């Protein structure tokens, strides 16, 4: 075993010349490039598939939106430029549908997050059968939305035979036609019933990911239960709540099954996606208009999503820092 002379300090090696370093940096660049590409390859199948299946229809939509194209009665497709768009902004029905979408999405997201948080807090405790109760509460999320809507329409909300009216009837109230009198809120009701479990799961995980030592320290410092909740738990849950809002909004803007299931699509509670559908192959057969509507919906969603994306970036940013 040979060891370098211990009495020497570090020595500059002059056996390697400087010239190769210039070549080396070009080689190094090529190597880095090749390495970066080899890391991209696993992504490509999914990316290509998604681009093909989603972007082609999207581009077609843009194209159709610039034409006048109705099918009933059949007429030739003619190029109309932005006329469909200007019509849309003036169309009362379009504006109504937008407003309904806003209300429906907002209330179903907010209410299911609030109820989800409440349920999560109740289920965060230790008691016998907590898993069983959690299973019960989870079930509405698993039920097919169209089935949920039909069951609520015929068995819960129904004026003559529905269970809600039966129950309120026991208390002496008159039967109430939920679906026909309050279509929007009936729909929101079923949506909240189905999505509260989803929010609850996410928020439950958030509650359980709290550091017990932090909570214990707070208790030792003399904080009240409510104080702990407000100053420690809620800030910790912020990311989780924001995620609930984001995911919830993405899925709840697109509600369709409940509208068809509960009201047959004939009530005043029609959101934008439904309205667009009705205008195109759902009966209106006005394809040019409908395509313009759908593009507008995308633009609106992008605007809201960019705002929501700043939230997402915050989550992703925190990841980089961690």
């Amino acid at each position, binding site marked *: *075993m040979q060891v370098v002379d*211990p*009495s020497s300090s570090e020595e500059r090696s002059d056996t390697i010349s400087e010239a*190769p370093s210039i070549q*080396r940096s070009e080689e190094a660049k090529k190597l880095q490039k090749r390495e970066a590409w080899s890391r991209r390859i696993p992504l490509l199948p999914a990316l290509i598939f998604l681009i093909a299946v989603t972007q082609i229809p999207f581009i077609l939509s843009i194209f159709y939106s610039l034409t006048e194209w109705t099918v009933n009665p059949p007429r030739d497709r003619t190029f109309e430029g932005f006329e469909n768009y200007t019509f849309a902004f003036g169309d009362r029905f379009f504006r109504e549908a937008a407003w309904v979408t806003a209300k429906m999405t907002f209330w179903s997201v907010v209410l299911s997050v609030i109820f989800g948080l409440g349920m999560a807090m109740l289920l965060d405790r230790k008691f016998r059968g907590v898993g069983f109760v959690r299973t019960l509460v989870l079930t509405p999320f698993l039920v097919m939305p169209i089935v949920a809507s039909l069951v609520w329409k015929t068995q819960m909300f129904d004026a003559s035979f529905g269970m809600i009216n039966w129950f309120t009837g026991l208390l002496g109230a008159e039967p109430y036609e939920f679906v026909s009198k309050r279509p929007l809120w009936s729909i929101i009701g079923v949506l909240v019933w189905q999505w509260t479990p989803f929010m609850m799961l996410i928020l439950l995980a958030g509650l359980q990911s709290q550091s017990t030592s932090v909570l214990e320290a707070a208790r030792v410092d003399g904080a009240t239960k409510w104080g702990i909740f407000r100053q420690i738990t809620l800030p910790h849950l912020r990311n989780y709540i924001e995620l609930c809002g984001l995911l919830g909004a993405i899925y709840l803007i697109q509600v369709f099954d409940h509208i068809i299931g509960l009201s047959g699509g004939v009530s005043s509670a029609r959101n934008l996606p439904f309205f667009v559908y009705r205008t195109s192959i759902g009966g209106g057969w006005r394809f040019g208009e409908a395509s313009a509507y759908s593009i507008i919906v995308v633009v609106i969603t992008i605007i809201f999503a960019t705002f929501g994306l700043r939230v997402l970036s915050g989550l992703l940013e925190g990841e980089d820092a961690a």
Partner: protein
Amino acid sequence: MAEVKFVEASRIYPGSDEPAVDRLNLDIGDGELLVLVGPSGSGKSTALRMLAGLEWIDSGSVHINDKDVTLSPPQDRDIAMVFQNYALYPSMTVAQNMGFALKQQGVPKQERTKQVREAARILDLEPYLDRKPKNLSGGQRQRVAMGRAIVRSPQVFLMDEPLSNLDAKLRVQTRTELADLQARLGVTTVYVTHDQVEALTMGHRVAVLNFGVLQQVDSPSILYSRPKNRFVAGFIGSPAMNLIDVDVSGDSVLQVAGLDIPLSPEVAAALKTSGPGKYSVGLRPEHMDIGTEGIAGEVAVVEELGSESFVHVSTIHQGEPLLMEVRAEGQTKIKRGDNVHVAVRGPAHLFGPDGERVGD
């Protein structure tokens, strides 16, 4: 023959102003155990990872056995690494963990088993070969991490703070075993730690880094007796050297708290040559005595260790309060508040206004 050379090797992280490792030049001999030591952020781990191929080398080069490996991926460098957190594959047994690299190389099963068993024997891991990492203690996991490295018979061992996660007693025990193992196997080893005691006891030579720059590389005894600059002087040695700022005037006399400090002839001559200025005097606690003569002061704190004790004495130096640490005998009778005198017995180190050592 596995020599390792860093030649002007630098690494700067994108978006950062300062390099993490700044033009490192280091030659490591075959079979040597070289320790890279320094505070956090000193670049020691980065330098190790540059050798491993886990960090890009932005300029300069790295050589293993005269072969330029700067552009080679980790698996082509014939190295093995032990990570601080061991990085054991949780879904595999100990035997599978240790045999993984051989499997990637296409070594047939029989041969693999043989080599794994051999490494397990060296490390006393034979009873654990079929266990999964989660069923092992910290010390056992550490040995599996070592075993995984040994099995590959590499040219160079790289170790990134392998003992940091062990409790204090186990750490001291494993330290000796590790140094012994390295000596027996004779494989060139580059070892990173932030613990200078570990560095001094294990390394054939120790390289001290600070802010990405190599401060000094020497044997432990030279680092201790002839630190090249103020940083190394204050970093090496436990407890740390007392570093006292002294304004030296024209007559080149060195005084601490009124006491003349004896200098060796070379240092005195060098001091005369450099002239007046702000210098630092280094006095090791073990080279000072509490007695009846010397600097007058009051005892502020006594740290009793049984075998020895360390007394912190408070005094006045150049008009400002000064706290010095002095080694005394174990089970000392000295207590807080006592008025004592501190004499300087051993050599004084002197560092110039630029922090560099003055004298030899």
